């Protein structure tokens, strides 16, 4: 852990122990979206995920006196969340999506439809584009509606992919922070990120290549 992060964590933990409401509010706002996305890997409904997040903060408050800074505060909070979410999923009779996190490449998935490429046995250009990607019109890229397309594309991703792209690209976390929060290896995190980004790109390409 970086020195600055350690100092920052120590300050936050101290403030929480002292019952500083503003620090609590700041933390809950900062991590809310990320916590929800991770909870949604385990429980399906948004409402249940919200409950899991609420329970997590109770767990954080009740456990803060025992926090020993062996991990970052953030990692510790996400570990509490994951435990609560798993218990909740079991109670709901859901099979835990271990494979989504531990073997994300068990089911192959192409980043781009195979029809976009020449066949592998093509004599001159095997695997070459049949229809090459075209530049996206800048005015449409910048339009507010395009952001909505991105949000929709994220919403329909499988939950583990959605969590990874939300932490990395929406929240701007580093790969290390994302791996710690999700309990993922770097390799599996890249598989999930790759699939998520590829699908969002496809949604954008579909939308931006439509004639208006």
């Amino acid at each position, binding site marked *: 852990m970086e020195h600055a992060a350690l100092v920052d964590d120590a300050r936050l933990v101290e403030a929480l122990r002292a*019952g500083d*409401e503003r620090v*609590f*509010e700041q933390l*809950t*706002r900062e991590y*809310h*979206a*990320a916590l*929800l*996305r991770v909870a949604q890997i385990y429980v399906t409904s948004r409402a249940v995920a*919200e409950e899991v*997040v*609420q329970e997590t*903060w*109770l767990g954080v*408050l*009740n456990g803060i006196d025992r926090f020993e800074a062996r991990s970052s505060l953030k990692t510790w909070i996400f570990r509490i969340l994951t435990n609560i979410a798993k218990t909740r999923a079991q109670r709901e009779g859901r099979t835990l999506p271990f494979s989504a996190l531990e073997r994300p490449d068990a089911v192959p998935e*192409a*980043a*781009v439809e*195979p029809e976009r*490429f020449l066949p*592998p046995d093509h004599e001159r250009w*095997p*695997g*070459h*584009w049949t229809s*090459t*990607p*075209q*530049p*996206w019109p800048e005015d449409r*890229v910048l339009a507010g509606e*395009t*952001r909505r397309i*991105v*949000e929709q594309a*994220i919403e329909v991703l499988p939950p583990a992919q959605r969590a990874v*792209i*939300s932490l990395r*690209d*929406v*929240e*701007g976390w580093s*790969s290390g922070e994302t791996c710690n929060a999700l309990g993922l290896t*770097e390799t599996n995190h*890249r598989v999930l*990120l*790759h699939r998520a*980004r*590829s699908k*969002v*790109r496809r949604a*954008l*390409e579909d939308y931006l290549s439509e004639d208006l």
Partner: protein
Amino acid sequence: MTNEIEQLSCQELVEVVTNYLEGALPDADRLELERHLETCDGCRQYVEQLRTTIVLTGEARPLDLTSEAEDALLAAFRDWKSG
């Protein structure tokens, strides 16, 4: 002159591009990918689209903390503090 090295196809490139952008490709693979990009408009455009995708995703709205949830959290916090 024939090229003895197996060349990276466009279809293969789109599968390793995240590793490339994440700086996780071994040097030899990275150089091969960069050589491919020098001569392939389609793949250059593809990588450009992915970079745009990442920027646009950064502008997506994160899920909101609803005011009900916020109130419930504050109530729980005050409970905990007084308890």
